[in-house]
């Protein structure tokens, strides 16, 4: 497969770019924050109208079946304007997990409404703060022909807005995932504001009773699907970081061409020129990393996990570098709330931690490569 976007993917990217930059530029995030809100329901409504929540959902369940490269280009453009939506958490990550793990009945019940955007689901997996699923302690005890779920999940972004929680539990036979309505008895949710003006939810499950039909797949049989889902989450969140890096970089290069100090445009200083050039090269290299990881998901290639972790690790580094350089090269003004560039650094911090940080994916990459 050629490592470029095909015509349809390019069209999708162009239209996402146009739609987001016109309707939900960075000022929309600022307005949301200043009004005390933590999400953008209007954006989600419009994305739903365009069918985007069905991006990776199979045609058979009313999805677009457009694939992960499609999801990635949308996320890249969302990264550029810092648009907030449950696209990644529900339409991409949760839809993937349900598709991989659910039985026919469960898919029928959930996927069409996820694809339409009416229903949102979110993966509640991590308890460690470091996406370490080995440390999952949430239990599902067989009870009355169903299960009683107890435990707690930490830092679930979009967790308090989601209709359905996909809860990873562990027992002796391994991991299992339950799809649980978020308003079920025994669920308590506490949220906290995080640095990019979203909220993360800490969710406690106290003997939450669910029927046997809430279990996706088998108890103990979720590992492979969770692994695929992690690849999806890593690659797609990389695409968002790529967008953040590109946009921060372009704004910074623009500033270098405008700002004067010592009687010259600061962009004439070779010290800054070389750093900008180096960053440009890093971003170009990162583009290839992200696209290859997304394509590998669509092809279900055996290199999928290596590429996904490579992309997440590489993007985490590069987006850190890009947003740091952006603030540094903007100087004092870059530190002010009034100026937008700081928003990119904040969102980048959240994306870098989501679904495993640099160190997590660096370790996974090496382990997969045999060292």
């Amino acid at each position, binding site marked *: 497969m050629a490592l470029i976007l095909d015509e349809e993917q390019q069209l999708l990217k162009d239209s996402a770019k146009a739609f987001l930059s016109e309707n939900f530029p960075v000022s929309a995030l600022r307005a949301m924050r200043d009004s005390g809100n933590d999400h953008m329901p209007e954006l989600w409504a419009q994305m739903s109208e365009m069918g985007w929540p069905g991006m990776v959902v199979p045609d058979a369940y009313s999805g677009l079946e457009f694939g992960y490269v499609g999801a990635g280009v949308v996320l890249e453009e969302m990264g550029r304007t810092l648009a907030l939506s449950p696209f990644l958490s529900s339409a991409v990550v949760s839809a993937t997990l349900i598709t991989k793990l659910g039985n026919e009945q469960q898919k029928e019940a959930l996927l069409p409404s996820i694809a339409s955007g009416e229903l949102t689901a979110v993966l509640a997996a991590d308890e460690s703060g470091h996406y370490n699923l080995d440390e999952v302690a949430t239990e599902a005890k067989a009870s009355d022909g169903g299960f009683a779920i107890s435990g707690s999940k930490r830092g679930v972004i979009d967790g308090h807005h989601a209709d359905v929680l996909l809860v990873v539990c562990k027992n002796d036979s391994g991991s299992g995932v339950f799809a649980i309505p978020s308003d079920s008895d025994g669920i308590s949710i506490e949220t906290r504001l995080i640095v990019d003006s979203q909220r993360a939810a800490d969710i406690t499950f106290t003997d939450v009773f669910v029927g046997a039909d809430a279990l996706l797949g088998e108890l103990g049989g979720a590992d492979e699907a969770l692994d695929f889902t992690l690849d999806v989450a890593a690659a797609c969140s990389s695409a968002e970081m790529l967008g953040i890096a590109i946009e921060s970089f372009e704004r910074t290069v623009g500033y270098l061409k405008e700002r004067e100090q010592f009687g010259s445009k600061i962009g004439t200083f070779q*010290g800054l020129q070389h750093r900008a050039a180096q960053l440009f090269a890093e971003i170009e290299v990162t583009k290839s990393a992200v696209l290859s990881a997304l394509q590998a998901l669509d092809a279900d290639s055996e290199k999928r996990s290596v590429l996904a972790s490579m992309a997440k690790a590489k993007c985490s580094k590069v987006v850190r570098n890009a947003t740091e350089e952006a603030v*540094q090269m903007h100087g004092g003004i870059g530190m*002010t709330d009034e100026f937008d560039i700081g928003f990119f*650094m904040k969102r980048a911090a959240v994306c870098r931690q989501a679904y495993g940080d640099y160190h997590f994916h660096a370790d996974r990459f090496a382990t997969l490569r045999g060292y």
Partner: protein
Amino acid sequence: MENLDQFRAETREWLEANCPEDMRQPMRSDEDQCWGGRKWVFQSEGQQLWLERMATKGWTAPRWPAEYGGGGLSGGEAKVLKEEMSRIGARRPLNSFGLDMLGPALLLYATEEQKQQYIPDIINGRIRWCQGYSEPNSGSDLASLRTKAEDMGDHYLINGSKVWTSYADKADWIFCLVRTDFDCPKHEGISFMLFDMASEGVSTKPIKLISGSSPFCETFFDNVKVPKGNLVGTLNKGWEIAKYLLTHEREMIGGFGLAGGGLKPLGQLAASTRGTQDGRLRDTSLRAEAISFELDEMAFGLTIERITDETKAGQGTGASSSILKMYGTELNKLRMELMMAIGGTDSLNFESDRTGALVKSWLRSKANSIEGGTTEVQLNIIAKRILGLPA
């Protein structure tokens, strides 16, 4: 050799008797610092007592001359005082730009009358000072400043504005760089003036930062009258004082990178938070970064020590402030990045309570390599002034 043992014994006894209990507790955050000044509201009786007692002995400024109210201590005595305060965990009684920045410059450049007028109030914390240096269009290029002071015969008339004035909204007086001559190379028409922030025509506007806090202000001067006696040093030669002060500031900011201040060593923090395997931090990639950081941090701490010792021995290289500023601030940024990695998703909390402190410090740290002369400016200084590379 002076006899420090007796001084140590007396100091220990005095501190034991005079340092209030609550001033021996570790500070929970920056909010616990005492800044003094006309508008200051003491947070506890202990805070007030501690400042008054220390100021009376001149120990808020231990090495300043006793004739202006300073402690008049020798280098050795000052070190003993520091050690004894640290032994009981005593807080610094007064945090102040007057102590850290203006005072040393006044002692060097001011007239006897000016010293008498300003220094005692710095020492006892009655006047809180702020620094008027940067302007909206003169960031790294500080000397291009445009705030104007016109000689009106019996006073100067000041018009213009400053930016990045730390705590201008809370300060009583300002030490300020102004342009007194426009018809000469930019470094040669600058003067150093002091004036009351309560003067007519002075206004301030806090700048909200990405961390959500507002430690800095924009400061506006609209026909502010300043008495002629408030000029420090020679007219049009203020750049010399400015440079002296910048050097001090750089060393202060650079010092942020140090582990010293009771922070838990980063690698140990990582190990206790993230767990070990066979005695090694389990996350091997994080371990490698922590090592690289700690090597630099330790070598940097030793460098501060070495430069201090060289200065004492009269071997100063002159290079020190730019190196310390550049290296220390980059190190501190790295420390904050690693702290975020250790914290994981919990570290993203932005709540205004304590839980948001880490991410706010992380954001705040990004300014370290900008304020007080950017890293790029320090590198230029090293390249040109120390290495003698051609322009």
